[in-house]
């Protein structure tokens, strides 16, 4: 898992990015930092890919990007989840979880994880 050529499905990355902006407006740097932090940088996603995802989501109307001023008074582009984005997040998360549970069941590698996920 530690290899740098870990291929993340594009849809999964979009899901992570959507999740990253779901708490409120967030600039790109914040999004990359948050994802690295919560995944302990295990997924090794390039920052550029995350930006691509952000802009793709903006194009799809799931988030909006607007220029604003960051906490330390710097100009930055802030991304906000739209209503459509919130709905997409809910659906994709549920779908992804169901998918993961199914895969875990087959592999039986992690009973704990299955229990955890089923509880979700």
């Amino acid at each position: 898992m530690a290899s740098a050529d870990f291929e993340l499905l594009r849809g999964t990355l979009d899901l992570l990015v959507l999740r990253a902006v779901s708490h409120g407006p967030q600039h790109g740097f914040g999004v990359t930092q948050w994802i690295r932090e919560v995944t302990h940088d295990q997924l090794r996603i390039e920052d550029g890919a995350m930006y691509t995802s952000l802009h793709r989501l903006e194009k799809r109307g799931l988030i909006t990007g607007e220029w604003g001023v960051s906490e330390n008074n710097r100009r930055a582009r802030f991304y906000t989840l739209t209503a459509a984005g919130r709905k997409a997040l809910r659906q994709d998360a549920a779908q992804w979880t169901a998918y993961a549970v199914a895969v875990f069941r087959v592999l039986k590698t992690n009973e704990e994880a299955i229990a955890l996920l089923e509880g979700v």
Partner: protein
Amino acid sequence: MAGGRFRRAFRLAARPPSVGQDVDEEIAIHLEQLTDWLVERGWAPAAARDEARRRFGDLDRFRRELRAIDGTVRRRQALGDWLSGWLQDLRYAVRGLRRSPGYAAVVVGTVGVALGANATMFGVVDRLLLRPPPGIGHPDEVRRVTVARYDRDLNGVGEAWDAISYPSFVGLRDGSGEVFAGVAARMGGSVSVGLGSEARQGRAVFASGQYFGMLEVRPALGRLFDETDDALPAGRPVVVLAHTFWSTAYGADSSIVGRSVLLSGVSFEVVGVAPRGFSGVNPDPIDLWVPLSTAARLFYSGDDWRTNTGHQFLNAIVRLRPGRGEAEAKDGARRGYQQANAGAGDFEGKAEPRFTSLLEREDAGPERVAGWLYGVTIVVLLIAAANIANVVLARGLARRNETAVRQALGVSRGRLLRQYLVETVVVLGLGLVLGLLVTQWGGVAVRRLLLARTAWDSSPVNVRVLLVTAGAAIVAAFLASLWPLLRSARVDVARTLHGAGRSTGGLSPGVRGGLLLVQTTLCTALIVLAGLFLRSMDAVRSLDLGIDPRGVALVSVDLQGLGATRDEIATFYQRAAERVRALPGVEAAGLSVGAPFLGNQGGGIRVPGRDSIPRLPGGGPYFFPVSPGAIEAYGIRVVDGRAFGDGDRAGTAPVTLVSETMARTLWPGERAIGKCFYVPPDETSCLEVVGVVSDLHRQGLDEAAFMLYFRVLEQLPELTPARHLVVRTDRDAEGIERSIRQTLAETRAELPFVRIAWYADILSAHARPWSLGATLFSIFGALSLVIAGIGLYGVIAFAVTRRTRELGLRAALGASPRRLLRGVVLRGVGLASLGIALGLVVALAAGSRMQALLFHTDAREPLVLGAAGAVVVVVSALATWIPARRAARVDPMTVLRVE
């Protein structure tokens, strides 16, 4: 970000940065932030920078990807903004219009009515003047033939008219040396379709075999007749139905081809149906076409019709050969015509054929009036456009503050302009819809009431009318709104916001005064023209016709077609007259060959003691053969002597009644009673004048003086058997018509269609050009008056509003309300007076060109000019007085406090 939306609003004013700049900036900021973050965690700055780069990945690739994505987003956004901008403007416009329904109503109403009038008249003019008759192939090559006859007094050709003889037609066709691609002859006629109670009148054209071929007409159904159907001496009994007649009389039944129909009692085979809209070369409606030689053989006795050069009953039409000049064609036609008439004397032998295109009509009938009327509707449209321009200007002025505030807030001029433009387009769009409704109703009314004698092939609103009207609307929009809008959007923000716009007008009063002047001028001119037509109509109504047309009907039955002999027909009419005379409600009845307004007989006379008789401008002498009862039935006044009596019959001394003009011309200063004249070739019996009657008309309302006399029907041996039964009634038309038909049916079995024409209808058809002019000019004149009145009212009301401060001050300084009122009204009327004066000048110029269309009315008639001026003065005084009264009531304190 809470501030995002606000920021965005501000950013609108400036040019947004390009997609590339945006992406580059975002990446740069990201790298900066990450570097700082790493440095904070103990990285060396250079290493931190490298790490940030490394974590980002392939910079160039991502930059490209981001730009591509953003480009799409930006384009989509721009389109959305643009669309929602228009939508917003539309909502804004609708809201604005609902806030000021008065403005909306005035503009929509004005535009709608003016466009509607314009479209209605365009439809008429298009059919009558602009478009060649429908259904004809290459109509530009087709010409009508008129013939200028040789006049010995002029030693050259004189007047040209379109009637020619059959030999002349053959001469044109066969003797012109191939200069024509086709030559055809036609005559209008009337047949009875069916028999007995089922019978109806059919408007027929009897046409030579080449007719359809040379006009390049394609049948809608079956075939059209050709030269084999029209072979001499007698053609085949075939008939081609007009599309409209086929639809109305036979329910558009396509099995009609091959069936037979009874035309004036003879069985004809229907061979085909003409294309929709086709009614020949003239605009009047036609029901069916029959080959000329068939019709002539059946409906006229003998072969005289095709040999006699004096029997002129045909109109010729020719198709020029493409590539050959018209001069060459004329030479050929002259050769052919003169050869055919070589033995007929100089009158025909030296006559010269002329050509007129299908679009040229020589008569001053409804066509020319319609042309003028279309011009008038353009003027009405101009007046309306001036009105709208004024209203839009006023609105722009009233909105100066709003405009200034919005410009100060950063709304661009272009955007503002667009907003006002949308508003104008909405108003004009509504006006256009209203206009088309007006056209639909107005068109139907005009067609039915005023142009009933024209065949119409499409609805009043058709593609051409729609295009022209939309074009007119766009031109009107440009004239009326774009320019004032441009001015409205140009506002000095600072000055206006500082209060400069509150009291004095920024726009020169000259512009609006100028518009008003144009309106008043045009309006006055229109009213004058309307007045001239009203006077003409009045002159027509009060014309002494020499007969008393009230309650007089002409009854005729086409018996020749049934094969009845001359004697049978004469007996039938005689008995019919006796029976009808006995009907209750019938005051008098008699027989007449020809009738006033429907045609007459003519021929030279010889007066004992005179070498020659004088020529009068109206020609003649002409005569009507009548039975004794007809003089009374027509209501002809006997001025001197007696009328015909029962003692005047075949075998008794031949007698005559002469018109006053004839009596005066032949025996000036003497009493005509007892005088006599011969009618060559009969040199044995001299017709004795037993009475003098008032002058009357023979063809139309506007006739030059001519000599006319009456003869006793029975004293004329050789005469066409066609008769009119003249009936004078005192009953309503409906009931008496039925009893006349019944009486005739009892007189003879198997009767074809009985034609009953009321003089009132015949006369109204003759008066149509003037009634058309009088009615429509009055409507359009009144319309323009109302529109101009509204315009004047608007301008004065607006001026008063803007002068409130001044008027209040003057009131405070002691000016009496009456004085203020007078000042404002005088200003308005003064403004109008100049327009009225100019309008009268315009009317004088236009009137002199319209003289030919007027009836016994001078185009410079002072009464009409004065009355028109007075009407406009009154209306403008009224339009000024209402707002002026408001001004006079201004409370000085209120005004001064506001300022």
